[in-house]
C-alpha cells in the first residue's frame, strides 16, 4: 500500500515549474529513492511532499487523505507523521545536540517528565551512535555527526515517514555507508517508510527498494530497484552503468 501518492503533481518555485505532472506512489515500510542529476528537482519534490512548498498543480495524498496546503490542520497532520533529515542537518546552532533532539519532544509533549525526555533523547542518540556527543553544539560536530544527530532529531517523534535530502552528500564513503546502514535498520527494525533523495550510486544500490528517476522535468522511471538493471533507457544506462553521456 502506498503511504504517499501523487496525482498529476507539478512542483516548482513561484511561476517556475521544475517538475510537472508526476503520478507516483511511495510504498509503506520501504525505502523509495528519488534520483536524478543535479537540478532535476529532487529536493523540490521532497520539500513539496514534506509540506514546505505548495504544489503548482495536481496534488498528493498522505495515507489516503489529500493534503490541502491552504489548511493548517491538514499540514499539521503531515508534520506530525514525518521526520526530515536536511542536507546540511539543519540543527539549531544555539542548542546542544541533546537539546536539538529533545526539541520536538518538549514542544509537542510539554507535560512529559524531564527524566523521560532525557531517556528518550539518550535512546535516540544511541540509535545513531551519537550518545557521547549529546552535550556538544552543532558547530563542534563533523558533517557526518551532524547528519546522524539530525537523523536522531527527525526520529524523535517516531514518524511514519522519514524524508532524507541527500544524506550522503559531502561524506566520506565509510561515514556514508554507516548512514545507509542506519536507514536500512530503521526500515527493517521499525518498519519505517523512507524517502531518500540522492544521486550516490553506492547508496542507491544498497538501500533502494523502489526508485523514482526524475529527468527533464518529468518522472522518467518509477519501478522496483531491481528493474533498473534491465531498463532499456539511455538516461538510466548513462546514470547507472556510467556509460559516457551521449
Amino acid at each position, binding site marked *: 500500500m502506498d503511504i504517499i501518492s501523487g496525482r498529476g503533481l507539478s512542483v516548482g518555485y513561484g511561476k517556475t515549474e521544475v517538475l510537472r505532472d508526476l503520478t507516483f506512489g511511495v510504498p509503506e515500510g520501504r525505502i523509495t529513492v528519488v534520483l536524478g542529476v543535479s537540478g532535476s528537482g529532487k529536493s523540490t519534490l521532497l*520539500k513539496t511532499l*514534506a*509540506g*514546505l512548498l505548495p504544489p503548482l498543480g495536481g496534488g498528493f495524498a498522505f495515507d489516503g487523505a489529500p493534503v490541502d496546503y491552504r489548511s493548517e490542520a491538514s499540514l*499539521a497532520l503531515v*508534520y*506530525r507523521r*514525518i*521526520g*526530515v533529515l*536536511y*542536507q*546540511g542537518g*539543519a*540543527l*539549531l*546552532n544555539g542548542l546542544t545536540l541533546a537539546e536539538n533532539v529533545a*526539541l*520536538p519532544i*518538549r*514542544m*509537542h509533549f*510539554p507535560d512529559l517528565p524531564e527524566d523521560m525526555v532525557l531517556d528518550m533523547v539518550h535512546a535516540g542518540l544511541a540509535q545513531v551512535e551519537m550518545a557521547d556527543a549529546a552535550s556538544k553544539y552543532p558547530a563542534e560536530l563533523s558533517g557526518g555527526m551532524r547528519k546522524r544527530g*539530525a537523523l536522531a*532529531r527527525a526520529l524523535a*517523534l517516531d514518524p511514519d515517514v522519514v524524508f532524507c535530502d541527500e544524506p550522503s552528500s559531502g561524506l566520506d564513503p565509510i561515514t556514508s555507508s554507516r548512514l545507509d546502514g542506519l536507514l536500512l535498520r530503521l526500515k527493517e527494525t521499525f518498519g519505517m517508510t523512507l524517502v531518500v533523495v540522492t544521486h550516490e550510486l553506492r547508496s542507491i544500490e544498497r538501500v533502494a527498494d523502489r526508485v523514482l528517476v526524475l529527468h527533464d522535468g518529468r518522472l522518467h522511471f518509477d519501478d522496483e530497484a531491481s528493474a533498473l538493471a534491465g531498463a532499456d533507457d539511455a538516461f538510466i544506462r548513462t546514470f547507472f552503468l556510467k556509460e559516457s553521456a551521449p
Partner: protein
Amino acid sequence: MSGTPSAAPPERVLLPKRLRAAEVVDALADLRRRPENASVVLDFGQVEEFDSAALAFVGYVRSRRLPVVAANVGGALARAEESFVRRPPAEPVPAPPEDGRAGRFARACADRFLDRVRALGRFLAMLGDEAYHIGGYLRTRRGVYPGETWNQMFFMGYQSYPIVCLLLFLVGVTISITSAEQLRVFGADAYIADIIGYAMLRELVPLMTGVILAGKVGAAVTAELASMTVLEEVDALRTMGLVPEKFLMVPRLLAITLVVPLLVAMADVAGILGGMIVARVTFGMLPAAFLEQMTNTVDWVDFAWGLAKTVVFGWAVVVGAGFKGLTVGRSAEEVGRATTESVVLSITMIIVLDCVFAFIIY
C-alpha cells in the same frame, strides 16, 4: 581594425612558443598598432605552450573580426581547439514594448509600487499573526522554547543598557549646551530644566532608543533568522510541527516588551543627568533646583508616553527584523541585504510612528 586588406602581400607574424593570456594581449596590441588596412598572417606554427586565452584568440582570428588570417594551427593546439566549446551566438534581445521610455518608466514604477504594496500586506499579516501567537502563548504557555525569552532579554536589555545610556547622556549634554546659548540671550536660564525634561522624556529617549534598538537588536535578529532560513533550520522547525513565526518571534517580542521600561527609565536618567551637568557648569544651577524646575513641567504622564512610544518602536523593530529575516531568499548574499533592509525599514517605521504619535499626543 576594420577595412579592406591592401593588395600588398600579407605580412607574416610568427607567434611565440609560449602563447598564454599575456602573450595574446601583446599580439593583439601589436595588431592594433598596424594600419587599419594592413593584411597580416598570424603563424601559430611554433606554438607549443598555450592556454584557453590562446584558443579563444585562434577563434577570434578565424571569425574575421580582424583583417588577419590564422596559419599553421596544428598539433596539440589544433586538437585543443576542436574541443574548445565556442560561445553560441548571442540571442537577439527582444524589442522593448512600443510604449516609449516614459511608458517603460511608468510600468517599472507601477511594478515597484505593487511589490511594495504586496510586501506591506505580508508585513501587516505577520504583525497580526504575531499578536495572535503572543495571545496564544500567554494562554497556553506552549510553542516557545523554555528560557528563550530570558536569553533574548539578556541580549536586548542587559547588553543594550550601556550603549543606550551613554548615547542618551551625550544627547542630553548636546541639547543642553545648544539650548543654554539661546536661553542665556533671553535670560531664561532656569527653563533649561524644563526643556531637557520635556525633550528627553517625550521625544529624544524614545526616538534614540528606538534607533539604537534598530541598529543593534534589529540587525542581529534579522541576521540570525535569515541565517536560520538559509540553513533550512526554519524549514526544520516547520516540519517538526512547530510554527517558526511563534517559536522564534514570540520570545523576542516578549523580551523587547519587558526590557523596554527599564531601558527607557535608565535612558531618561542618563539624558537628564547629562543636561543637569551642563546646567550646573553653564548656569551654576544646583541639581536640586534643576529637578524641582523640571518636575514643575513634566510628570509621570510624559514618562508614560515616552515608555509607550518606545514599546511600540521596539515592536516595530522586532517585527520588521523578523519579517526581513524569515522572508529572505536562499543565498548567503541575501542575509546581508536583508539585514541592511531591516535596519532601514525599522528606522523608517520608527520615524513614521513618531510622527503619528506627535499627532495623537499634542
